[in-house]
């Protein structure tokens, strides 16, 4: 029971999603959103999930280490427009 490494290229696209149990990883260009929860149980399944989690986070760390990082992200670009239904 070995989980295959999922397709998840941190910060490279807005598409990739990996769910480990109820824990979801969402790939964004400016962040990885991790939400939900997960029991890493002391059994074979728990080990496989822990390895997967570890591998994913390892890739996130490696990707961040390889980048020129700003002190903090710029504010998101959100416009205000007239409501077409208003």
């Amino acid at each position, binding site marked *: 029971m070995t*989980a295959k490494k999922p397709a998840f290229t941190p910060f490279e696209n807005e598409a990739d999603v990996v769910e480990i149990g109820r824990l979801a990883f969402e790939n964004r260009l400016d962040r990885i959103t991790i939400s939900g929860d997960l029991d890493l149980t002391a059994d074979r399944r728990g080990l496989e999930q822990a390895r997967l989690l570890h591998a994913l986070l390892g890739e996130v760390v490696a990707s961040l280490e390889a980048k020129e990082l700003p002190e903090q992200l710029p504010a998101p670009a959100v416009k205000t427009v007239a409501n077409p239904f208003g």
Partner: protein
Amino acid sequence: MFQKLIVRAVLAVGLLATASAHAQLGGKLGAALSGILPEPSCPTHYVGGRAPQIVNPKLAPATRALCFNVFGVMHSGLTRTPLWSAEHLRADNIEAAQDLSRENSFHAEPRLPAAQRAELADYARSGFDRGHMAPNGDMPDRSSQRDSFSLANIVPQDGENNRNTWAAIEGEVRKMAKREGDLYVITGPAFLGANLRQVGKVLVPSHLYKLVYSPRQKAGAAWFIENSADAKPNVIPINELERIVGINLLPALAERDKERMLRLPAIRDNNGGKRGSKRGGRD
């Protein structure tokens, strides 16, 4: 005026093959047409087999009905979001995921014209979550899970809202569906106020709603919540929600039937001690 338009549109469809109707009629009439003619596989997602009807004519342009296996969407090319996503949730279809892990991917909806649909780039660096309307956690199989990641089923949603209160509402709905046997659920955005926020070309809804109807109790109600971090959901009757959003969401029901309130569970968000979502985290 709008009613007349629809009547003419229905007559027109009687005369023309449906496939050519879009091409030949075009413009507003085409928009009205696509708004009232769901594709054939859709009725199963709706109470009495009847899809919601747009009442506010400003919502009608550039709408398009899209059918997925377990949910139906009315997409707006003005907002580049769904106006609603409708599901018929059945107790036997809600199973906890057994997989070690699953992969999914957000994607633009290929059936929509490029000039009307959201692209992944619209949401990039927006600060908003891609909020599912029909939740991934409701999907009974892999194919439907993938469907739920179509941007035709997504709106820009405040992240705190999405991951906490909204996830709790979704979890409560799944629990209710298990208790009731089945539930019809319609989820969508509301665009209220003089101004709206926009990310890329996608309009950000001011509010979100989730309407629940129990065929067993012949009663329904809706959660209505501002699309913001600390918002608390209000529980309102079906007809009040319909007035707010300008859509007849349950046209199969008589007006007096829409007043019969279904009791909805209290929502304490996922930061509030009680875990609302037993599966799927946020959607």
